[in-house]
């Protein structure tokens, strides 16, 4: 495939800004004609539960006025959806709107699947935290998506068991390690938590908190920093804890893990704002016994967190009605009624800062009735989210993480070697795809 060599590199600001504004200019002029000439119907691929109810609000309200009807086509989330979108795009049949995780945006943009909607969406910028908005611009002048939900990371622990074993909530990672050791001494059959390699987003978020920047650009080349100093520090920290047996090394989301949380064999979990939902099904018997605190920090007094999960709404280049689609996407992610419905029916934590303290978020989640200020605290933590740096082959890096770190955690072997493997695999794949890579 010779044409892959010429694939557009996303983040080289000058080239894209020039090209994209030219494209957007001709795109929007033709759209205006179409949008004004009659009713428009749009299709929207999304996985959020209850999204059809939220879209109904649009179709009966503002959409009716504007003659823009949106149809939800419910999809399964995950990397396979990105492949599906790209396949459809190859045939010129991608839907008008897609839900996309932040780390998938560079992949979609480098395949020219997402339209620059800066003209219609640029004004929404100040509704979001800067670190969140930056993920949808990929560091260029263009805007490729509108943030929908975010997953700021937090520390969850069993408040009752922490008291029973006389543990204090760790504010630094050093204290976190001490807490794990102290618990092991007091109750050898219990673990503070586990290091799991089956969800790469967790590790990526922890590295992000430490200041890692996995994909950056220099000139028109990608630079991969997966084994940079910050990530190395994170890998060594968790590798050390696993090796000395201070924490468990079994994967998350298994029946055994559910049981460990439900019976108090594991008494803490490094997770994100959506954890209450997971805990409700994983550990139904411990409702009301958990509490949430900010993630431990690397330096005393710091206030930073990473993000795990979260997604955005994007308009595809295949859409014949980009302006109409942009209007809907802006409404969906900034309008108060829409966000309230999304929170209620979709169970999402909104990216829009004004929505984080209103509507459904004035009360704590049902699982955390013992912590009335849950969402106020969450909003404060969300504000401290460190910037992230995604590249066009996150899926490859993630798969490599699962393989390399999965084996390392199981064998309690060297985590930094696993990190080097991840770096090597990711760089090799970028080169194979025809991207320029700076060593």
């Amino acid at each position, binding site marked *: 495939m010779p044409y892959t060599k010429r694939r557009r590199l996303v983040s080289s600001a000058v080239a894209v800004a020039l090209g994209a504004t030219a494209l957007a200019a001709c795109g929007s002029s033709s759209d205006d004609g179409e949008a004004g000439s009659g009713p428009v119907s749009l*299709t929207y*691929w999304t*996985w*959020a*539960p209850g999204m*059809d109810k939220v879209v109904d609000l649009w179709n009966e309200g503002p959409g009716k006025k504007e003659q823009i009807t949106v149809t939800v*086509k*419910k*999809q*399964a*989330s*995950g990397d*396979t959806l990105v492949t*599906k979108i790209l*396949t*459809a795009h*190859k*045939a*010129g*049949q991608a*839907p008008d709107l897609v839900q996309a995780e932040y780390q998938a945006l560079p992949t979609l943009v480098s395949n020219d699947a997402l339209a620059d909607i800066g003209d219609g969406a640029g004004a929404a910028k100040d509704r979001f935290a800067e670190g969140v908005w930056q993920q949808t611009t990929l560091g260029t002048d263009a805007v490729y998506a509108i943030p929908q*939900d975010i*997953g700021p990371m937090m520390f969850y622990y069993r408040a009752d068991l922490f008291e029973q074993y006389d543990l204090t909530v760790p504010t630094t990672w050093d204290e976190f390690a001490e807490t794990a050791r102290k618990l092991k001494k007091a109750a050898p059959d219990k673990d503070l938590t586990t290091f799991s390699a089956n969800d790469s*987003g967790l590790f990526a978020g922890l590295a992000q908190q430490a200041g890692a920047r996995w994909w950056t650009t220099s000139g028109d080349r990608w630079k991969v920093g997966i084994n940079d100093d910050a990530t190395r520090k994170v890998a060594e920290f968790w590798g050390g804890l696993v090796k000395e047996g201070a924490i468990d090394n079994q994967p998350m989301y298994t*029946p055994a893990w*559910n*049981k460990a949380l*439900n019976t108090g064999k594991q008494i803490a979990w490094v997770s*994100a*704002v*959506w954890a209450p*939902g*997971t805990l*409700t*099904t*994983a550990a*139904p*018997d411990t409702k009301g016994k958990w509490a949430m605190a900010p993630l431990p920090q690397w330096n005393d007094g710091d206030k930073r967190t990473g993000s*795990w*999960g*979260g*997604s955005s709404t994007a308009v595809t280049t295949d859409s014949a009605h980009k302006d109409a689609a942009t209007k809907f996407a802006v409404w969906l992610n900034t309008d108060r009624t829409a966000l309230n419905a999304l929170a209620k029916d*979709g*169970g*999402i*934590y909104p990216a829009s800062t004004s929505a984080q303290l209103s509507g459904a978020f004035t009360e704590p989640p049902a699982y955390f009735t013992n912590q009335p200020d849950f969402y106020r605290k969450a909003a404060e933590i969300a504000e401290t989210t460190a910037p992230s740096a995604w590249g066009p082959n996150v899926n490859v890096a993630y798969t490599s993480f699962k393989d390399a770190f999965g084996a390392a955690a199981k064998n309690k072997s060297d985590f930094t070697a696993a990190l080097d493997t991840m770096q090597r695999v990711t760089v090799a794949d970028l080169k194979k795809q025809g991207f320029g890579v700076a060593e």
Partner: protein
Amino acid sequence: MSSLAVPGTEPTAGTAGGTVRRPARRRRIAPLPTLTLLLGAVYCLLPVAWVVIASTKSGSELFSTFTFWPGTGFAGNLADLAAYRDGVYWRWMGNSALYAGLGALLSTCVSAISGHALAVYRFRGREALFNVLLAGVLMPPVILAVPQYLLLAQAGLTDSHLSVLLPQILSPYGVYLARIYATAAVPADVVEAARMDGAGEWRIFTRVALPMMLPGLVTVFLFQFVAVWNNFLLPYIMLSDDEKFPITLGLHTLLEQGANTPALYTLVITGAFLAVLPLVALFLVVQRFWSLDLLSGAVKS
């Protein structure tokens, strides 16, 4: 299953073992093979048993009670499943039945005609054609899904029922089986005799060859039905409207709801349990044709 019937027909079926040692009708159970078979049976049936038992557990019982102890939530699970997105599950079930039933039927017809033609007629390039078909058998259908999608997109057929049905009608394996079976089951003399009596080719196929091929075609139908019922990638790429999803895709969307919503395990497990039932029923019904096939083959040879 039909192999169990073999010891009963000792005089004919016992020839293979009899030539070597001729055991004096010993009914002793050989421990090692029996144990191996039992282990195999346990290995295959345990996951099924798990699904059956897990489908009776409610959400809170699923991971907290003993694995093989039935729960109390089966009715609740069924109600939840039926209520999910206004009963879209039954639609998925209907879609699966349509794709697998109609698809397998059409595929069997195509296989029967092609197999008959390849077996009865001698024409230039027959073996070459058959070899291409064999290559098709070796090619995993997964590889073809994306090209098929691009082709159907050109024809404007994606995201329709046809887009899932059409690619599955031609099954190289089905044609291969039908040809092999037709060669063995339809004697050339019979075809020749029918021709002498003045029957046309179509009449020969429908009245003479088809009844003889029927047991083989049942096998083709079953294979194809199961293959379509379990197919995931083709419908995954072709369809975007979840009202047209087959059951495999539908259950997948229940599992992958995004990081912030827990997977609907109880619904998926109950859904998977119900999805196996039609297959089990189909096998039980069609089994008699099948064992007939194997037995009649054994007698003839």
